[in-house]
Structure formats: structure tokens, C-alpha cells
């Protein structure tokens, strides 16, 4: 009883909770830890728990593009970090099927002292390609990033725009099956942003699953088939982008303007 290819569930979160323990600063100082051992141990035991996600269940199918919206601190980025494997979950189950390419921060791990070319290869391998695949993709990456001759230069000579362009070019060329995008597209000039979205649109047609975290509600309406509104670690609303965005705006309006009465949305 196999689900058909296009319907296959590629990201399944079941009752996922994520707790962060807020480590007191002195944790990192051995001297103080040893000198004040009793207090230190007590402080360690009574670390403040913070629940970034609470009992969250969400299923995303292959080829879907889902927008995650919500106020700051709602748990959007934590959700992406969990799906990408960067953050272990505290409770619940997570199943991910396919190669995940996280665009959480463009060019994370780029080293300024070595050339753009070497950084691109290393980054592509970090993101899951083999070295040979990375070499083969290099011309496409260079072309997309519009870096031209600069690709052989050490990255310390790059402008921040060039940095981001190379980061994005690598991330979208690693043959992702699941692309996680966290707000990164807010950087770069308008022209490059347009290019990025055009490329994401192409990936979408190629049945790449896309999870987009953003504050740009227009982009959610434009690129996503489904939207999820997070608030304080739980799903507050889920459904068609237009409706979820409206609900978010309405509730946000309610929060910020206390005069608004409880609407019937």
C-alpha cells in the first residue's frame, strides 16, 4: 500500500516539542564553576526551560511549498532547524525523506581566506553533494552567482552582495529535494531577489519540496500552496495562504491595537 510518488509525505512531524535550556553564563567559566561549586550545581539543575515548540504535528508532501509565518519568537526558525537536523528534538517523532538543503544563512562556513571556487566546492559537499558532483555543478554556480573572474579570488575581497549571491547559488544547485528557506531572500538587490525567486519557482516545478519561513506575506501568497501560522510554538492556523495571512494580520492587528474587538475571522 505505497502512496503514489507525488503524494509521498516527505516531512512528518509528530507531536514534536523542542525545549531549550537557558544556560547561565557562568557555565562557560571553569574557574567560577569550581570556586562556587555548590551554587553552580544548583544553578545547573534549575536551568530555565524554554519551550520553542509544543506538541507540534505537521505533514508536508513531496512537491508542496509551504509558507511558515508568525510573529518573532513563534518557533519558525526552530522548526526549520529541527527539520534540517541541526537541532535535536526534545519529544516527538520526525521523519524526513530526501536530501535537505537548508538556506538558513547564505554562505555559512565560507572562509574569507580561500577563493570563492574552493568555498563553493566545500560548501556544496557540506550540503550533501559528492566532490565530483560539486565540480560538475561549479560552472552553473559561477554563472548563477554572476561572479565571473572573481570566483578565483579570496572571499575577503568580496562585497556582501557577492557573498550572498555565491551562497544562494551553491544552495540551490545542490540538487535539493527539500529546500528550507529562512528569510534569507531579504538580502541582495531587487534584481537578484527576482532571480532567486524565479529559480525557486523552477525548483517548485521540478517537484522540490519548499518550506519558506518569512515575514514577507506577499511572498507566501505568491509562492506557497499552503501556509502555517505559528504562535508561541503551536500551530495557530493552517490552510490556504490568503486565509492564513488574513488571520495573522487580523490577530496581529488585535495584538497591536488593543482597541480592536474580537473579530469573527
Amino acid at each position, binding site marked *: 500500500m505505497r502512496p503514489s510518488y507525488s503524494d509521498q509525505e516527505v516531512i512528518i512531524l509528530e*507531536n514534536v516539542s523542542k525545549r531549550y535550556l537557558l544556560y547561565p553564563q557562568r557555565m562557560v567559566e571553569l574557574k567560577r564553576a569550581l570556586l562556587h561549586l555548590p551554587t553552580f550545581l544548583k544553578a545547573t539543575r534549575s536551568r530555565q526551560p524554554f519551550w520553542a515548540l509544543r506538541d507540534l504535528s505537521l505533514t508536508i508532501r513531496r512537491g508542496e511549498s509551504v509558507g511558515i509565518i508568525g510573529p518573532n519568537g513563534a518557533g519558525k526558525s526552530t522548526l526549520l532547524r529541527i527539520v534540517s537536523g*541541526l537541532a535535536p528534538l*526534545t519529544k516527538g517523532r520526525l521523519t524526513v525523506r530526501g536530501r535537505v538543503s537548508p538556506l538558513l544563512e547564505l554562505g555559512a562556513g565560507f572562509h574569507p581566506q580561500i577563493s570563492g571556487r574552493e568555498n563553493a566546492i566545500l560548501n556544496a559537499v557540506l550540503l550533501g553533494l559528492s566532490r565530483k558532483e560539486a565540480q560538475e555543478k561549479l560552472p552553473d554556480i559561477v554563472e548563477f552567482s554572476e561572479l565571473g573572474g572573481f570566483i578565483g579570488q579570496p572571499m575577503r575581497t568580496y562585497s556582501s552582495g557577492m557573498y550572498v549571491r555565491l551562497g544562494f547559488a551553491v544552495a540551490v544547485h545542490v540538487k535539493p529535494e527539500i529546500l528550507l528557506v529562512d528569510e534569507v531572500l531579504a538580502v541582495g538587490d531587487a534584481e537578484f531577489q527576482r532571480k532567486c525567486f524565479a529559480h525557486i519557482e523552477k525548483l517548485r516545478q521540478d517537484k522540490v519540496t519548499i518550506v519558506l519561513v518569512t515575514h514577507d506575506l506577499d511572498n507566501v501568497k505568491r509562492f506557497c500552496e499552503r501556509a502555517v501560522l505559528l504562535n508561541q510554538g503551536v500551530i495557530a492556523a493552517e490552510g490556504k495562504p490568503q486565509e492564513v495571512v488574513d488571520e495573522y494580520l487580523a490577530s496581529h492587528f488585535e495584538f497591536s491595537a488593543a482597541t480592536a474587538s474580537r473579530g469573527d475571522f
Partner: protein
Amino acid sequence: MAAASSASYADSPGRLNLRGLARTWELLLLLTARDVKLRYEGTVLGLLWTLAKPLLQALVFTFALSTVLRIKVGYDVPYVLFLLAALFPWTWFQSSIQSSAASFSNNAALLKKVYFPRFVLPLSAVTSQLLHFALSIPILVLLLVIAGYYPGPEWLLGVPLLTAIQLLMLAGAVLLVASFNVFVRDLEHLVEVLMTLWLYLTPILYPLSMLRERVGPVIYLNPMASLIQAWRDLFLYDQLPGIDIWPALVFTAIALVAGSITFKTLEGHFEAVL
């Protein structure tokens, strides 16, 4: 519900393990290459420093110990050779631990944003230092030949064998140090001091016999003593390591187990403090 949690990733079903292993290996190679490249970036001598540094260090020690203190090694080889035969493998050991201590904490940006097998970070420091060590062996051979000693066929077995032991020992040790250093940054500074102390406690500048006379079997507590002695016997006398090497083997096993358990346990908490 229970506090149990699980996460499963199915990347390219069926080929997961092989592919993952190959990728880890390539990652290690790329990071090693980057490390070597970065080390001497902007220097005139470049990779030559790999050879120049231990040689200059050896000259300093030779001057201090052989000329000034007039230490008697009881070996029939010149002091410089006696010293280098132990100093080269020791340098691999010491620089690996020192340069890998901060390999997690200094790569916070990467660890927080990209998921990859994280243990390759400290391991790449060990392998890049291994490369430096490998490059220093021809220098040693050259000096030995000049002094009239010719390396025997025992090297073909002895060098890979001792390299493997030291590589495994280092792999465990750096995982331990680098993992703890994420939480207690003092470690990277402490390690620097301790390694200098360790250098003097190990028969590198002086012969093992000198230490054995004074402290007796306590020397077996220092795993590097037996390993360094094995390197020296191989380089100077073409002697393959014998039963005497057991402290190094025991320590290697302990380091590997402790290192991997520590890393496995602490890895999940990295993101909370980095």
C-alpha cells in the same frame, strides 16, 4: 506522551551508508586541504614552514640541551638525530590536540547552519598535522643518510603501524577535548600549558632510560612515552615495535571509547551553547 524522541532521515534509500561514508571522507579531505592551505597563507616560505619549524625547534633544543646542559643520551647517534626521531611524531601529536581543541567552538556559524558529520572538524586538524608529519619524514631520512644511517625495510611496516596507532589515539583524544571545549572554553588554554608539560614528561629531549632510572614503572602511565620510544627505535635502529608499546595501545582504546561517547553525548547540546 513519553519523553522519547526520534528523528530519521532517509537520504537516497539503500545507498545511505555507503554514500554517507564517502561523503564524510571527501569532507575530511577538503577540510584537511583547507587547513593546510590556511596555515601558511600569506607567508613567503609557505609549506616549507612545515619543515623549517621543527628543524629550527630542534636546533634550539640541541643548543640548550646538548651544548649548554651537556645532556648524555647514551645513544651512538648525534643528539640532533636522537631528538628529531622523537620530536617529529611528538609535534604531530601536540599540534593536533592544540589546533583541534577549538575546532567546534570556532566553527559555531557552520555548526549552527549546516548539518554534516561534525566529527570531521577536529579530525581534519589531526589529518592536516599528519600531512606535515609525513612531509618531515624525508628530512629525517636525509639527515640519517648524511650521518651514515640507512633506513631498513622495517620502516615499511613500522611507519604505517605506528602512524595508525597514533592516528586512532589522536582521533579519540581530539573528540574528547574539542567536545568539552564547547562548554568550557578554558580547556583550549589549559591544553596549551599541559602539552608543554607533557613534552617534558615524555622521553623526547632525553632518553627513556634516564626517566626509568628515576621514576620506575610510573612511566607506563604516560602512554606517549612508549609510543615515542617506539618511533625512536624504528627511526634510529630499524626496530619494529614490540610488547613494550602496550601502554599506548591501552590509551588508544580508552581515548577512542571516551572520545566517541563524549562526542555522542555532548553533540546534541552544542547548539544550546554555541
